[in-house]
Structure formats: C-alpha cells, structure tokens
C-alpha cells in the first residue's frame, strides 16, 4: 500500500459512524430484547391477557413446574427434535450432495425439490390433514389398509406423522444449504482422489464429509433450534392432540396464554423455551469447536 502520509491515513482509518447501526438496533431492542426481559417479568405476574397485570411472586412458576403437562410438553419437544433431526440431517445431506452435481435430470429434479419451501406451514398442514383423513384421504380412497389408519387420531402414530411432515417441509431448505456447501469444495480435491484411485464412497467420507464440517454445524444448529419454533405446522395439523400427544412447548405456551388465559404461566414457559434455545445453540457451537461467527468468517 502506497498511502503513508499522516493525514490520508487518518482519513482512511475513519470508520463509519455507529449511528448507521442505530435503526436496526432500536427495532431489535424494542421488539426482541425488551420482550425477552418482558417475558421474564410477566412470569412473576398474574394476567389474563385483558385485565390488569398483578405481581404474583413465584406462583406461575410453581404452577408450571408442578404441572405434568409441562413435563410432557418437554418430552414431546425433545422427541420431535430428536426424530426430525435423525430423519432430516442424512436426507438433506445426501440430497445436497446429489443435487450439487448438475446433470440435466438432476437439475430438473432439483427444481421440484424446492417447491415445499414456498408453501406456508398452514398450507402444508391442511394438505396433509386432507391426505391423511381416515375416511376420505389417500389410504381409504386407494383401498390400502396400511394407509387407511387414523394417522392423526392415534396417539402412538401421530408423533411420527408430525416428524414426517416437518421433514417434508424443511428438508428442501437444508438440502439447499448442503448444496451450497458442496459447491464450495475445491474440485482439485476430487481430482487428486481419483488419481489416487479412491472410489465414490471413499471420496464421500474422506473429502465431502470433512469439508462440509461447518455446513453441517450451521444446518444442524438451524434444525435443532428451529424445532423449538415448529408452531404453525403442529398447531394446524393436530392442535397438539390427540390428548397431549403432540403438544410441543411453544404450542403449550400459546394454549396456556391465549386459550386458557394464563399469561403468567405461559410466560414462564416462554422463559423455559428461551433457556433451552440458548443452551442448545451454545452446545452445538462448542461441539463444532468454533463459534458460529468465526466459522462464517473462515472463507472470507
């Protein structure tokens, strides 16, 4: 660099004013951070959503922590998180690798793969509700006894139906992430491996997987933390039922607050949700050995 005189150096080192970040920060503090403190505050109050808010000590917390439905909601959330990760992660990884190579028919397939990305969760849920209807849906219509179950009314099956529908909607998104990851792997690695006589499987495990490390962390974090926000889909598909079989934590929070009109207890559930989300994100970052931001900077 040829610039060395004192005055021009000062000109160059003058960064932009922090004020440029202010509008975004204000919005975010007002509608995300302030409510975050608000939900903590409300968890110590009694409020029906309409009347006055009264301080009520720990009673909401006692209610929530002694209520067996809370434990059940945690369990359901954990199950859905676990199973949807187990189902989605390998499928989206393999599809991402598969579609990253662009032969003609793969390109055509990939166009259709991403259609579910466009659908709202409400639309997806309504479509599946019709499709799985025990009287008029796909199974009874085709006369297939295996398919003709009361999928959404059977508390043993319904969880897996929810996992399947979640995968249907979200695998395309994660496929896209992996596709981008694979496209950044230098071609020279594969060429070298081929010269060394490595087969496809060997190339996958020795090059593709290790190179995708940060993609896997990003996708997994989004998948796991995202499963704390599977609200719309489950709300429209099952409403949390039958019984409490699919009543996830966010859904339980909504129903407690806006249907049972106990905003104090719902806020306590909200706080639990935040704590779990933060803990999961931190654990995943530790597992990755680097924090998310640093891994993002890697390629820059």
């Amino acid at each position, binding site marked *: 660099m040829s610039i060395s005189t004192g005055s021009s150096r000062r000109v160059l080192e003058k960064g*932009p004013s922090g004020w440029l970040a202010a509008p975004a920060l204000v919005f975010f503090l007002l509608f995300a951070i302030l409510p975050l403190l608000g*939900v903590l505050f409300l968890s110590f109050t009694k409020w029906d959503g309409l009347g006055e808010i009264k301080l009520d000590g720990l009673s909401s917390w006692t209610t929530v922590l002694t209520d067996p439905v809370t434990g059940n909601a945690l369990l359901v959330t954990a199950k859905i998180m676990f199973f949807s990760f187990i189902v989605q992660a390998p499928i989206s990884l393999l599809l991402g690798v598969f579609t990253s190579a*662009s032969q003609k028919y793969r390109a055509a397939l990939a166009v259709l793969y991403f259609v*579910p990305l466009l659908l709202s969760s409400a639309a997806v849920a309504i479509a599946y*509700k*019709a499709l799985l209807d025990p009287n008029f849906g796909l199974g009874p219509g085709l006369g297939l006894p295996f398919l003709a179950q009361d999928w959404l009314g059977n508390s043993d099956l319904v969880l897996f139906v929810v996992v399947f529908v979640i995968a249907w909607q979200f695998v395309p998104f994660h496929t896209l992430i992996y596709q*981008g990851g694979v496209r950044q792997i230098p071609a020279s690695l594969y*060429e070298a491996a081929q010269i060394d006589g490595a087969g496809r499987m060997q190339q996958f495990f020795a090059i593709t997987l290790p190179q995708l490390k940060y993609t896997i962390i990003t996708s997994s974090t989004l998948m796991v933390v995202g499963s704390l926000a599977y609200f719309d889909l489950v709300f429209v598909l099952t409403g949390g039922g039958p019984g409490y079989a699919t009543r996830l934590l966010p859904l339980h929070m909504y129903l407690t607050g806006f249907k049972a009109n106990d905003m104090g207890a719902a806020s306590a559930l*909200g706080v639990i949700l935040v704590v779990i989300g933060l803990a999961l994100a931190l654990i995943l970052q530790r597992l990755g050995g680097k924090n998310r931001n640093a891994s993002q900077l890697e390629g820059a």
Partner: protein
Amino acid sequence: MASTTQLPVPPARRAALSDKQDHKHGPRSKRTKGPGRFRPNYLGGLGGWLWLAVIIVPIYYVVVTSLKNQAGFFTSNPMMPPSEPTLDNYKLVLENDFAMYFVNSLIVTVGSVVPALFVSFMAAYAIVRGKGRFLAWTNNTFLLGLAIPLHATIIPIYWMITKAHLYDTLLALILPSIAFAIPISVLILSNFMRDVPNELFESMRLDGCSDWAMMWRLALPMTRPAVVTVGIYNALGVWNGFLFPLILTQSPSTRVLPLSLWTFQGEFSVNIPAVLASVVLATLPLLVIYVVARRQLLSGLTAGFSK
C-alpha cells in the same frame, strides 16, 4: 486426510455466481461433473427419484382434489384426475375475500421486508467497516437473536402492541416482523460485505466520499446477490408467517393469507376440495415467482447459507 481438511475454502462469494456462469466458465466448470464422475451414481439416482415421489404426491393430491366437485371427491379414486374438472371451488374461495387477504399479505410483506433490508444493510455496513465497542456489542446482540427462539417473546409483544393501540392492525404485524428479520439479515449481509476489497473503500474515501455515498455506490452494488437473498428469505418468512397474525389480529379486514387458510378450513371443513383450492390459490403467487426467478432465488439462498 488431515491435510485435506485444512485446504483453504475458496472465497465464499463464488457461490454467489449464478448456476449459469457455473456451467460455462471458471475453475468450477470441471466440478459440475461432480465427485466420482466415472460411473453413474445409481444409488443416488434411486434416492433422488424416491424423494421426488415423496415431494410430489401430496402436491398432486391437493391440485387434483381441488378440481373435483363434492360428489366426485366422495366417489372417485383420490389419485385419479377428476372426470369432470370444475373450477367452482376456486370461484367459492375467490368470492370469500381472497383478494383482500392477498393484498393484506402483500402490504405486510413489502412493509416489513423493505425497511428490514434498509436498516440491516446500514447496520451491516457499520459493523463491517466501523470499529469500536458499541458496534461489537451491537453485532453480538444480533448474533444472540439467532440463538434465541424469538417466538418465546410473543406474550410481551402482544402486550406492547395492545398498549400501543395497534392490536388488529397491519402495522402490528409489520413492526415485530422487521425486528425478527434483522439478525439473520445483518449476518448474511455483513458476511458478504467483508469480501468487498478494502482498497475500493479506501480509494473512495481518499476521493472524499462520505460513508453514506460509499454504502449506496460501492457496498450495495458489490453485495447485490446478498441483498436479493436476504430480501427473498425474509419475504418468504413474512408471507408465510402464521403466529403473529394469529395473535395480533382478529378481524377479517386484517386477515393475511396463511390465517385465511386456517379460518377457511374451519368454515368449510366439510368441503375439502374447496379448502384445498384455497391452499392452491395461496401458493400460486409464490409458485409463479419461483418459476420466473428460480435461478436467482436458489443460487442466492444457497450462497447466503453456505458461508
């Protein structure tokens, strides 16, 4: 193997190149043939077609059923096209204020995405180009937003919106949607902006350019793919959003499309073909956009999240 993992990742902005460029030029053209290009990948192909079936069957079912009349729905094979296709279901949906819900969705989406892009872009510019503790703290605050399930904050948001007398207005949906779009927008935009060579900013600075001018004349054109990505991603999120409308609005005049599907389902629960027609109608606008702008959309989203 250890050495392969340490090979430098190519500049991530490459991924922002469109698919088209991909095939024709550059060092990546070889790679498009993909790993293991000597033998066809039968297993991958099989899996690929299998997943296609999983994707297509429900979509096909929805479209076919939406074209059936009630009688046809009850009697015919669910996978067979209707013997007498009818658009009556679509007519019914359109007569039920579909246009108004569509316009509401449009207002909320544009009203959220444009301001969110604007403020996020300025913040990303300040974070990348600026120094100091305030900006570092700001950046960390946004990163925190990525780790927190922000939906947990709906109760205080409901409280604030009610207190501000905004309940049951479209503005009630727009304000929190802007806030929720900011963390991911700033992250993606700042990641892209870091790749803009410093020398460009420095020479503009020496020419006496203000930050405002550098932002719009240099940073914006250089990060256009990221801006498009962020815009599309947020637009999809807001357009399909369900929770805020469910909690913050009430009357039909403020209803948005996803919520209208749900209420329509309640009103016409016996008329499944009509309900599915409303699903098709609500998805159609996005499908049209997808068909027109697919390349840009997919390459943008891929690049945005693979960094």
